[in-house]
């Protein structure tokens, strides 16, 4: 195939893979909400798409999935598109460029880092839009910090940094184990930055 053909092929591939990330985020997110689980699981698609197609596709998948989730699942998703973008960038830098996905312990550490980043990026949104409340058990921690004299933004950021890592580590581990379990036949069809560096 000519080089221009190959470029066009990748273009189309990006357009076809981003919806997969969208569907995974929306679907998994909806499931945990329906089951009232104390986790989110709404970024697995973003992580997967970033690993397979790069940070631009990852951001597109993350942002689009939250816009769609805002319609199909809960309109509160729309405020957190920035967090999804941050997740895509983090995954790209830490996991693909720095190659930390080589052992389960590195994944856990990367997951904790991801949680902290996500918690920090979401904090201003939660304060501005939701008055510091997230509608989850984390509010109790925020309230505790506020009542001990912390500023509300700092309290939200700290409670996020404390609670998000659990969820994000889980999501990163899930995405990592999925990537490792993909058959070569499928991996071969993607530019596959992570696959090349050996997951």
């Amino acid at each position, binding site marked *: 195939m000519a080089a221009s053909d190959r470029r066009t092929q990748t273009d189309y591939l990006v357009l076809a893979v981003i*919806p997969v990330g969208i*569907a995974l985020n929306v679907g998994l997110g909806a499931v945990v909400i329906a089951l009232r689980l104390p986790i989110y699981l709404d970024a697995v698609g973003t992580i997967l798409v970033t690993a397979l197609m790069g940070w631009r596709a990852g951001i597109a998948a993350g942002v*689009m999935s939250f816009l*769609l989730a805002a319609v199909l699942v*809960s*309109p*509160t998703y729309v405020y957190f598109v920035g967090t999804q973008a941050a997740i895509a960038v983090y995954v790209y830098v830490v996991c693909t460029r720095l190659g930390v996905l080589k052992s389960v312990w590195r994944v856990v550490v990367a997951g904790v880092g991801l949680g902290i980043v996500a918690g920090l990026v979401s904090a201003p949104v939660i304060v501005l839009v939701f008055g*510091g409340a*997230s509608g989850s058990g984390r509010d109790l921690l925020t309230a505790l910090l506020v009542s001990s004299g912390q500023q509300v933004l700092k309290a939200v950021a700290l409670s996020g940094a404390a609670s998000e890592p659990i969820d994000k580590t889980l999501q990163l581990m899930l995405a990592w184990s999925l990537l490792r379990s993909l058959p070569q036949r*499928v991996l071969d069809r993607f530019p596959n930055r992570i696959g090349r560096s050996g997951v």
Partner: protein
Amino acid sequence: MSPGARGVCTVLLIAGAALSVDPRALAVAWLVLALAAASVGLGGVIVRFALVFIAPIALGALLINGLLHAPVPGDQWWSRFAVAAPAAMALSLRIAVIAAAFQLCFLPLIDGGRLITFLRTWRCTGRALVVTLGGVTLVAELKLRTRQVLESRLAQGLGAVTTWGALRQLPFVLLPLTVYMLDAAANRSDLWARRNLVERLERYRPSEAEPGFGAVSAAALVLCLGWLGVALWFR
């Protein structure tokens, strides 16, 4: 409603809600939207959202913002929360109104398949259009395939009938699903390239006629402009 009017009304509703500080005005706006939603069969969605998402946020906001206020000496312990209540209510209702506007705008489009025309009217074309439509279709497809995978496991006596049991199936279910969807995505991209489908989508005009700007659109626009005026007035 015409796609243009639909979009403008949504923007006006959201702007008004963002600017409004009066919980009573916001409550009235939400009720009107809930009634409008009920008239198109979406009342349950709006109310369920309010109960499941807004109520916990309202409680959390009340708690946190109440604690932010120093207790008034000599008053009851709950007085600080009473002071915080209007702001917490306004905040929660604001989110509820914005959410209702968003859902009322888009849900009928997705269910009715009129999404393409709406997106095009609002200049969502080219790659953004493809990804949006692909996402909408794939979300529905993922639901179907998940059910099929769970069924396959059930059919071999491996699954579980309860929801907790289904949750334990997640790792076994996610592998075939992810493989399937990625494989399908690669095939689909090949299909799009081969048949110029992305280019065809640009030229595609749904045969179903879009409603033009009529009485409903005009009435809705007037109401939404009025709402924005009210929000600004009471600021």
